[in-house]
């Protein structure tokens, strides 16, 4: 008690200079807080120019006669540094386009900064790219929570974000003037296609939904919940798990006890591999195992789970895996392989770098369509003219004023003989009607 008294007395009885500083700083807070006034900036830059449309007066932000500056924020360091390959993919395609004369005589310049998969850092980098570097738009930003944190900022500043490295619904429903497309299939769309494919093509009757208990897994789970009554099948068990769980024995046992014929697994790669290993361990090998594309559509899964274990697993893709048989003769994929392996020899070329490259293809195509008179209005109009565009590496890209998803076309894949092969033609999802059409 005596010590507390000394603390209070010590804090109160200070040298007069410290007291002076204290009073000065308090006065400063009150004065400056009051002076701060109503300078909240909404839809305008610091000078008060309306920046919607990326334009300042007649000039378009980030666009000159011979250059377009594009921003990108992905994790380049830390545990999620693999997403740095998105920036490499974008840079590869930009280099290829620049070598061939650019777009309407303009060279493409990419400014890619490290977001560290941290919202605060990504916010800081967003401010730097928008306010200091004055980029035309943002392309391929990763990290769902980071994009959530910065969404309002981009909308206030009037900056378009396209081909996000996140398939979360909040960026596309309702359609925003500033968010267009994702590099990976929307989680809800993909799970809807899984459910439809399982029931109509694999004759599934008793289904288990195993999902990662976070934004990512729950989005897919909710998509199934919304349509489960429309199908002649039953979801007999729902098994949530946490992404960093190590032991999947009980989850596997729960699925086995439910006596299901199909498992839809909404997860990242590690849990997907672990669960299938557990299924094998308890002899549950005669079921359909369908894994979301983020967690399953990659040949590295054979190493992670074991070749025998992973064999037969279904997933989905929106870009063909370069080593898959269907990629043979695909001109866009061949160009990608040639360019990427030349730029980054010896590095992984499947999966994440493809997202960046494919996103850049969509962006460049939109620039081409927007014409020489480039601004946000012409750019948006150009995006809305995408109607199942298939000339890039994506299976199909569609935009409309009501559909900002971009990737509504995908195909089912299956792990076979050490590679991931396509087992269907293209499958189109219509966001307006919710219909799924098999080509």
């Amino acid at each position, binding site marked *: 008690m005596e010590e507390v008294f000394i603390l209070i007395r*010590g804090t109160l009885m200070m040298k007069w200079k410290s007291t002076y500083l204290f009073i000065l700083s308090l006065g*400063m807070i009150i004065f*400056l*807080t009051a002076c701060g006034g109503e300078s909240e900036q909404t839809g305008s830059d610091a000078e008060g120019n309306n920046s919607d449309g990326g334009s300042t007066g007649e000039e378009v932000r980030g666009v000159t006669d011979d250059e377009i500056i594009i921003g990108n924020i992905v994790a380049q*360091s830390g545990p999620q540094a693999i997403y740095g390959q998105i920036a490499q993919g974008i840079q590869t395609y930009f280099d290829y386009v620049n070598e061939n004369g650019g777009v309407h005589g303009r060279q493409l310049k990419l400014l890619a900064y490290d977001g560290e998969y941290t919202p605060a850092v990504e916010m800081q980098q967003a401010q730097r790219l928008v306010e200091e570097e004055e980029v035309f738009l943002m392309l391929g930003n990763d990290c769902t929570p980071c994009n959530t944190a910065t969404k309002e900022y981009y909308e206030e500043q009037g900056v378009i974000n396209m081909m996000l490295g996140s398939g979360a619904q909040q960026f596309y429903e309702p359609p925003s003037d500033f968010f267009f497309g994702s590099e990976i299939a929307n989680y809800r769309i993909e799970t809807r296609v899984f459910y439809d494919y399982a029931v109509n093509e694999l004759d599934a009757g008793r289904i288990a939904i195993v999902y990662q208990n*976070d934004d990512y897994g729950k989005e897919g789970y909710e998509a199934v919940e919304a349509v489960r009554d429309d199908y002649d099948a039953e979801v007999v068990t729902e098994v949530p798990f946490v992404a960093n769980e190590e032991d999947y024995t009980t989850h596997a046992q729960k699925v086995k006890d439910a006596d299901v014929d199909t498992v839809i697994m909404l997860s990242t790669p590690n849990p997907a591999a672990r669960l299938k290993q557990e299924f094998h361990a308890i002899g549950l090998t005669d079921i359909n195992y369908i894994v979301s594309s983020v967690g399953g559509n990659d040949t590295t899964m054979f190493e992670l789970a074991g070749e025998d274990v992973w064999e037969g697993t279904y997933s989905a893709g929106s870009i063909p895996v370069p080593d898959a048989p269907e990629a043979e003769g695909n001109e866009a994929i061949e160009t990608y392989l040639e360019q990427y392996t030349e730029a980054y020899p010896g590095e992984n070329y499947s999966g994440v770098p493809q997202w960046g490259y494919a996103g850049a293809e969509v962006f460049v195509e939109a620039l081409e369509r927007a014409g020489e008179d480039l601004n946000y209005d012409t750019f948006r109009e150009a995006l809305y003219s995408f109607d199942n565009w298939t000339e890039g590496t994506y299976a199909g890209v569609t935009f409309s004023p009501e559909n900002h998803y971009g990737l509504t076309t995908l195909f089912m894949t299956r792990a076979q003989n050490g590679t991931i092969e396509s087992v269907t033609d293209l499958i189109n999802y219509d966001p307006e009607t919710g219909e799924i059409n098999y080509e």
Partner: protein
Amino acid sequence: MQLKSQKLKYIFNSVVLLFIIVYPFLMNMSGYWMTLLVMMTIYGITAVALNIMIGYGGQISIGHAGFLMIGSYSVAIIADRFELPFVITLLLAGIITAFVGLIISFSAVRLKGHFLAVVTLGFGISVPVIALNWTSLTNGYSGMLVTRPAILSELSLYYFIVGCTVLFLWFMYNILHSSFGRAFISIRESEIAAQSSGINTTFYKTLMFVISSFFTGMAGGLYAYWIGFVGPTDFPVTISFLLLAMIVVGGMHSFYGPIFGAVLFSIIPHFTDEFMGITNIVIGLILVIIILFRPEGLVTIVDWFKMNKTMEKADTISKERGS
């Protein structure tokens, strides 16, 4: 001599304060530059608070990012559920974090050295995991948006944060220069000697935790208001290591050292981000160089200048006397 040094310190403090006040106008009201300075202040408060434990008290903590996270989530949760004035919310964030610090201290005061490091490391690792999994409270992976107080524009919030920083640093400075600071130092130097001099070491070690976590929690609260979002990936354990690096590089046995460290490590990414993956290499290099050549931290460079000046003066006097 002492008087002159004091005078110089006040001039330096006033110039820094003046610069921070006009800074938004110098930077053309750029959100990026303001965020850069705000992050310096937040890390500055946290590094000084951490230094109360490590530099002054000799109690290692490598989980301080956990306290930052508790402070930021406290603001987000209180602002979301209760309509309290934002100053009260901020204060509550500090109190809640201090309470958690108090609980941690119950076990931590019985430990020292590596064992204490492991306990605090465990704390730093577990807080983000709890934030991720306690979905009903924290909104899990999605994080929580924090609404900026309606009465504060971006500029006034900037000044509010700067003002709070001055206030918090002033409080910590006075605590460290009171009998408490002396008690902390005596515990650092020799716990047995401190105890035999009548210092209640358990009480003072607990107090270190509480004071340090209180100010760190407040810094976390300021972060939440400025960024407008908190999520489970905001303060991983790597931030705890970065904070540690800040006080080592800045100077552990000085009040100003951690502030130098916080400024340095906040500004480095500005110059290195254009080059993919180079930031951590640069931070690592700086750490190695400082430990090799200035093990007492950057702040000793000032002492070195002072010493050189004194030597020059002594030389001049001896020469004058000689002639």
